[in-house]
C-alpha cells in the first residue's frame, strides 16, 4: 500500500509546487517509487517545474472521465528512475475532479508506487479539500509571514476534520512542517518571523527549513526540480528534508545569517576584504 502525502498550505505562492517537485524527485532518488499528482486543475504548473510540459498528452480529468487510461496519462520522468507525474487538466473546470474519480486513481496507483504525492492548489475549497482528503501524511508548507502561518493553521484544522482519516475516525493524518523562503538575514534584523516562532505557533514536527534562494527560480526556468541542483542551499535543504522524512536524523542547516560585513567593508563596499 502506498503512502499518500499531500503538500498543502492554504495560501498560494508559498512553494507547494516547488516542494512537490523536489520532494517527489528526492524520494525517487532514494529508490522509492513515487508518483506526483497535480491537483491544480485549470492552473497546471507542476509539469513545467518538472520539465515535462511537452510530454503531456492526457491528464487526470481525462482519466477520471474515462477518455484515457491511467497508464496513458502518467509521464515517466526521464532523469529520475521510479518517478512519474500525473498532470492536471489545463482546460477543464475544477468540478471535473470528483472524489470517486480521485479515489479510483489513488487506488490504482497504490498498487505500483510507494509514495503518492498530491500537489494541492491554494485555498480551502474543493480542489484543496480533494488533494488532502486521501492523505496519510501532510507536508504543510509555510513561509515566515503572518498570512501564511495563519492559513497553515487553518489547513491543519481542515486536515483534522475533513480528511478521510478524520471522517473515518482513524489515526490522524501525520503532519510535517516545512518552512520555506526563510531568510536568516531578515530574521536577524527582526523583519521576519523566526523559525522558533513559527514552530511555537503551529506546534507540529519540523521536517525542514528551505532558505530563500535564487537557485529556485533558476531551477524553474529550466524545468529541473531544485533538489537536482546539489550545489544550491535550497537543493541541499530539500535533500535533508527527504532524508528526515525517511527517518534520518539530520541537523537543520542554513539557519544562520551571512557574516556581518565589518566597518571597513561597509565603508568601501564589497571591494574591500
Amino acid at each position, binding site marked *: 500500500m502506498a503512502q499518500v502525502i499531500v503538500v498543502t498550505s492554504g495560501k498560494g505562492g508559498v512553494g507547494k509546487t516547488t516542494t512537490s517537485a523536489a520532494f517527489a524527485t528526492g524520494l525517487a532518488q532514494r529508490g522509492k517509487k513515487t508518483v506526483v499528482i497535480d491537483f491544480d486543475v485549470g492552473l497546471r504548473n507542476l509539469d513545467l517545474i518538472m520539465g515535462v510540459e511537452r510530454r503531456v498528452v492526457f491528464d487526470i480529468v481525462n482519466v477520471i472521465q474515462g477518455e484515457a487510461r491511467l497508464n496513458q496519462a502518467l509521464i515517466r520522468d526521464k532523469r529520475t528512475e521510479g518517478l512519474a507525474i500525473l498532470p492536471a487538466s489545463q482546460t477543464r473546470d475544477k468540478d471535473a475532479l470528483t472524489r470517486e474519480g480521485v479515489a479510483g486513481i489513488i487506488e490504482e496507483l497504490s498498487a505500483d508506487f510507494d509514495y503518492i504525492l498530491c500537489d494541492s492548489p491554494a485555498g480551502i475549497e474543493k480542489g484543496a479539500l480533494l488533494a488532502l482528503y486521501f492523505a496519510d501524511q501532510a507536508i504543510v508548507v509555510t513561509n515566515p509571514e503572518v498570512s501564511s502561518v495563519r492559513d497553515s493553521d487553518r489547513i491543519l484544522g481542515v486536515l483534522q476534520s475533513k480528511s478521510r482519516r478524520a471522517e473515518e475516525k482513524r489515526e490522524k493524518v501525520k503532519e510535517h512542517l516545512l518552512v520555506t523562503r526563510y531568510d536568516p538575514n531578515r530574521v536577524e534584523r*527582526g523583519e521576519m518571523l523566526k523559525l522558533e516562532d513559527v514552530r511555537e505557533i503551529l506546534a507540529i514536527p519540523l521536517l525542514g527549513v528551505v532558505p530563500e534562494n535564487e537557485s529556485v527560480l533558476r531551477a524553474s526556468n529550466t524545468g529541473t526540480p531544485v533538489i537536482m541542483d546539489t550545489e544550491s542551499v535550497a537543493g541541499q535543504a530539500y535533500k535533508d528534508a527527504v532524508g528526515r522524512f525517511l527517518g534520518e536524523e539530520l541537523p537543520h542547516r542554513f539557519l544562520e545569517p551571512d557574516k556581518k560585513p565589518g566597518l571597513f567593508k*561597509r*565603508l568601501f563596499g*564589497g*571591494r574591500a576584504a
Partner: protein
Amino acid sequence: MMSWLDYFRSTRKPDPPSASAAKERLQIVLAHERIGRTREDFLPKLQQELVAVVARYVAIDPGKVNINLDRGGDMSTLAIEIELPGPPATAGAARTSAAAAR
C-alpha cells in the same frame, strides 16, 4: 560602491523590529480561530462529560444542562448552567461559568 551618505543612512536608527509584532498578532488571532474551529467538536463531548461528573455528586436531569460558548472581542466565556431537580425546598440552580480563553 557605497557612498559616505549610504554609510550614514545604513547606520541611522532602524525601525523597531516588526517580527515580534507579527508573532503577537498571530497568537491572538489564532487563539480565537482555534476556538471557533473546535466549537462544534468539543461542546457536545464537554456536555456529556460534565453531566457524568456532576451526576456523581447530585442527581440531575441530563436534559436540563445548558452550555454556552460566547466569543467576544477581548474575552470569550464558557457558561454552564445545570438545573438541579428535586423538591422546591432544596431545589435551585447551580451556576458556574469559566473564562475559556482570552
